């Protein structure tokens, strides 16, 4: 009798274990990472786009299955899906994820070759679009990388004086170049960065500036980690 119970228990345990093993053992949980990269295409900053491409390549090499990556440009009106150059959520199968990375890189290559400069720089609109995308991904870690001089120039009639919803988002400003006017009065540069810091932090996010792109792996350690 006792042996019979033990035998039945063992059989059911083994069956349950096998079923769990075969069925992939559960649903994906919100533990992935999502990165939204904004590339400034206004004015002379377009010349810096090669550096942005290098960072995207690094992100492609670092992000893994289940992570999301989107690259968008900052132009005259950035709060639009049309400004997203490429976006992807990497498949759970590594082989498919590798193919997706190749396709993503090709899209970025095409964009870099044909990029055109825009007259205005709508950073706020781009950040709002980024926050919306990141929320939709439902990722555990959310990052916005802004590749820009952070000098916002809004088209006449556009309203951007609102609080940015940056709750739980880490914002990293990359390669914030100094303008000629900043050289005359460095307080402009510092004030500009301080203003963005306040806007991001008041929206619930965190703010960081990284200008040294020589060691990409250390720069993005916070993102990849």
């Amino acid at each position: 009798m006792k042996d019979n119970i033990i035998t039945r228990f063992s059989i059911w345990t083994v069956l349950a274990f096998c079923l769990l093993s075969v069925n992939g053992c559960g649903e994906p949980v919100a533990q992935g990472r999502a990165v939204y990269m904004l590339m400034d295409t206004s004015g002379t900053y377009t010349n810096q786009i090669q550096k942005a491409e290098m960072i995207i390549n690094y992100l492609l090499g670092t992000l893994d299955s289940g992570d999301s990556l989107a690259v968008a440009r900052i132009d005259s009106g950035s709060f639009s899906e049309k400004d997203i150059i490429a976006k992807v959520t990497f498949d759970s199968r590594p082989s498919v994820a590798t193919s997706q990375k190749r396709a993503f890189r090709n899209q970025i290559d095409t964009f870099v070759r044909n990029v055109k400069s825009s007259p205005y720089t709508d950073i706020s609109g781009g950040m709002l679009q980024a926050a919306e995308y990141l929320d939709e991904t439902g990722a555990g870690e959310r990052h916005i990388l802004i590749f820009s001089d952070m000098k916002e120039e809004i088209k006449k009639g556009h309203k951007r004086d609102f609080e940015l919803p940056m709750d739980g988002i880490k914002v990293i400003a990359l390669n914030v170049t100094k303008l000629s006017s900043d050289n005359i009065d460095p307080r402009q540069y510092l004030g500009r960065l301080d203003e963005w810091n306040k806007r991001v932090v008041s929206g619930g996010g965190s703010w960081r500036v990284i200008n040294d792109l020589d060691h990409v792996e250390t720069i993005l350690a916070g993102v990849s980690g």
Partner: protein
Amino acid sequence: MLEREFHRINAVVSRDLSGYPNLHRQLNEQIVKIDEDYQQSTEVPPEAPGWAKAVDTVAKLRNDDSGMVGKILVDIHSTIKKSQQTALDDYRKSSSKRHQLLKNMMPYWRKLSLTLSDVDKSIKNLEDRSKAIDQQMENYEKIRRLSPQAERTLSSSSLTQFFISGMILTIATIGGIVNFYLIALPMSEMVGANSMLGPFKASNVAAMVIITLEIAMGIFLMESLRITRMFPVIGMMDDRMRKRMLWATFTLLLILASVESSLAFMRDLLAADREALRQTLSGIQATNPEFRWIPSVGQMVMGLVLPFALTFVAIPLESFIHASRTVIGVGSVGALRLTQVFLRTLGNVFYHTGNMLVSFYDLLIFIPLRFEDLIAFYGKKDKHENPTSHQVNENSVERGHGI
């Protein structure tokens, strides 16, 4: 050890002595055959030559050439000679036949000798095993009597076994880790890379499940081969059932090893694809190395061989489990002894510290007490001189006496 010896004896008895009735019958047949041949080969003594005297007499008769008698005698002589020759030939023939019979007996003798030698070998083997059992029984009796020597031998033997098997198990664990890394990445292709089972990646858990299944199959295989005896149920199975189980576990192990080999190949492909992507992303032209197939084949072979190598884990595992009982016991005794020494030392420290403190207190208190005694003494003196002061100094006097 003793159990193993009994099993060996059982095997010897089953293998050799089970055929004993047959052997006995063969021996009997051989002996009967030899006996018959021997009976036939006995030399029949030639008949006593009764005519020899007659021949002799005839030969002594005077041959006077009378013609008739002489002729008869010559005829008789020649006839007798012929008869003698015939008898001689017959005798030679029968002798030859007997020799032939004796010659035919040779293989039977040899066969008999071989059979007896086999029996002798079996009995000798049995005798050796019995001696081994006697030795083991003696040890067992010593253990039963809880003799210190047996206890020491047992614990030292267990410690040796424990460390040796522990070392082998460590090596096997490293092998298992290598095996795990070989199949963890391709497993994510099957169960998804971002599926989680609690805090663990599902692909890692699946890879671990395959490895543990391989080890379990290996243990069952070893049990079926009766190399290890961790599961009495398998050990007690009849040979037919045991052979079935042996083949079933071997087949499952082979399937798992094949799966692992293909996963190892897939891992190589995935790694190569990923490396090519990395090269492209860093702006280097992706190249295909000349001897790229060598690591691919190597990984496949490893994937196939490692599960079978892990099968042998069962042997040190059994020793480890058996030895760990004694080692844990020895360890517990050691720990208790250490605790005992520690507590005893602590007790002594407190005891002597207490004594020291009392002595120190005495050293400090004797001065005030001396003063108290002096006061009491002088108080008493005053009481005799002035009786009204008696009540006031009474307490201090009593205390002074107490001390």
